[in-house]
């Protein structure tokens, strides 16, 4: 149920991948520097545990639906933020590669949404602050609940932002937010309860696990502000660099304007308040045309749109051509298979 490639533009996907790659590099560095090489098998096995745990559903009493453990919080509690981030990233990678749960380009977004916020934001700033060094049942429950809810809310909001800025889906921002946030509040509640319950179980059975995990983690070295500034810079740089990928085709409004009035945008008066305000806007808008597009009206008038317009001839040729191309592709595939058959 993670983000799919089909809903992402290269600019957004690339920017998020740059951020995620930076985070993976940073976390790998921290993990390497840690002298405890017990972490190596522990990360792998705990990752497999989370993977297995995500497949076991329990029924939620009042609603009749089922929930399952997400895993980010438990990993952060047992491994610390850096190792937990790497583990969560690896689990998401396997889900993307084997179960196509989330695309390869969207993997950057998914790792960021589901890994960064629980491990680097919710855990150190919420859970750790509430539970501190003396865990009690109540503190663990409250800490895990609030951390899970906040982490998931921010993560869900990021999904909305990434889908919106990609511009492939027509889902309006407001509707999407109203859809995502309440659902993920419920999911966060379930995750918080499940995490808290399992952690309390482990703490009751073997308290030394939690205390040794807490001791072996050096949260002090985490300079979150520097990390965040670095991430922001990377995201903006990559987004701008990849904007040349963006389409030069007019969007719906400009297209319909072009068809009705012959120009993509309204004529600006040459003088007066309008002109000076427009001039100021031109200078100050750092994301002109709203979504990473860098087109200007003159370019659209010249450029021949390469998708079928309301022109019966071109639409029909597009359809016919597509069917033919698909047919040719299938023929090539069949030919290859037969060639392999006779060779083998």
């Amino acid at each position: 149920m993670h983000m799919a490639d089909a809903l992402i533009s290269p600019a957004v996907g690339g920017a998020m991948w740059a951020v995620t790659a930076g985070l993976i590099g940073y976390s790998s560095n921290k993990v390497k520097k840690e002298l405890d090489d017990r972490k190596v098998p522990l990360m792998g096995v705990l990752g497999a545990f989370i993977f297995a745990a995500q497949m076991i559903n329990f029924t939620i009493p009042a609603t009749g639906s089922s929930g399952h453990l997400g895993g980010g919080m438990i990993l952060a509690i047992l491994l610390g933020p850096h190792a937990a981030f790497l583990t969560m990233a690896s689990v998401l990678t396997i889900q993307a590669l084997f179960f196509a749960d989330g695309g390869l380009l969207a993997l950057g977004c998914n790792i960021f949404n589901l890994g960064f916020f629980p491990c680097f934001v919710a855990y150190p700033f919420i859970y750790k602050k509430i539970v501190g060094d003396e865990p009690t049942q109540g503190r663990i429950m409250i800490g895990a609940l609030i951390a899970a809810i906040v982490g998931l809310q921010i993560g869900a909001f990021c999904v909305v932002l990434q889908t919106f800025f990609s511009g492939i889906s027509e889902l309006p921002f407001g509707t999407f937010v109203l859809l995502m946030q309440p659902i993920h509040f419920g999911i966060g509640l379930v995750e918080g309860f499940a995490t808290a319950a399992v952690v309390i179980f482990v703490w009751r059975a073997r308290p030394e696990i939690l205390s040794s995990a807490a001791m072996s983690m050096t949260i002090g070295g985490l300079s979150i502000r520097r990390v965040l500034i670095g991430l922001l810079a990377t995201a903006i740089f990559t987004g701008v660099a990849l904007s040349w990928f963006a389409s030069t085709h007019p969007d719906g409004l400009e297209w319909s304007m072009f068809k009705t009035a012959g120009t993509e945008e309204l004529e600006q008066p040459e003088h007066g308040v309008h002109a000076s305000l427009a001039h100021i806007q031109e200078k100050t808008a750092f994301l002109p045309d709203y979504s990473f597009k860098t087109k200007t009206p003159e370019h659209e008038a010249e450029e021949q749109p390469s998708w079928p317009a309301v022109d019966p001839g071109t639409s029909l040729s597009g359809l016919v051509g597509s069917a033919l191309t698909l047919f040719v592709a299938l023929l090539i595939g069949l030919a290859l298979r037969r060639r392999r058959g006779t060779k083998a």
Partner: protein
Amino acid sequence: MTKIGNHFFDIGYMDTLASGDSPLHRLDPRVKLITTLAFIVTVVSFDKYALSELIPFFIFPIFQISLGGLPTGYLLRKVLMISPFAALIAIFNPLMDREILLQIGSISVSGGWVSFFSILTRFLLTVTAALLLIAATGFNTVCTALARLGVPRPFVVQLMFLYRYIFVLTDEASRMVRAISLRSFHSGGMSFKTFVPMMGHLLLRTLDRAQRIHLAMLCRGFDGRICIVRSMKIGYNEVVFAIGWSVLFVILRCYNIPKMLGALVIGFFG
């Protein structure tokens, strides 16, 4: 089969597919990884109304399936199983965007429907590309390719360990789930009260297992460094594969071949 059992079978089956032998399997994994990524980025870079331009891109998965002798039905079924999520988001497009974009005879198609099918096509293309990467290459080989391409060593090691122990842990978890369901009388799902101790015990066993694994590694000479040894060669086949497909992707991105083909055919007959 339970959900866990299904996943177990899935991963194992993909691994079996990857151990086959074909010209596709024998290619260097780095080349396959990079070409797949280029494919995905090119497909995703089209604007939201692109539909006929996307069709020629099917040649890439079709080529891989045929050359690698991979099962089409199995892959299609996997894609179909996860398509509801993309379709759920995509269905808003026809609802929101009602401007007429296409006119075929007397039928007018709104822009929303065009973008809906565009999203579905993109989905089909990108998802099969990702699945084919593993089915034709194998996970461990992809990991070594990643390590060679510069991905940080701790992350690659983590991926390999995770893969290795997924089989062990899903086995253990499925045994526990089966044991609980055999001993319980109500037919509904597992209650929270049962879930927590089960998960807690699984976690404790996992931590103990990690301890045993670490000791076993120490006994076999583990000193903190992981060495990945695998011979990979970039030969003539690899270069042809990479350059050929990249050039094709660029051409298909810049020119709408289906439309040209269609115009040709209609001009010929009309």
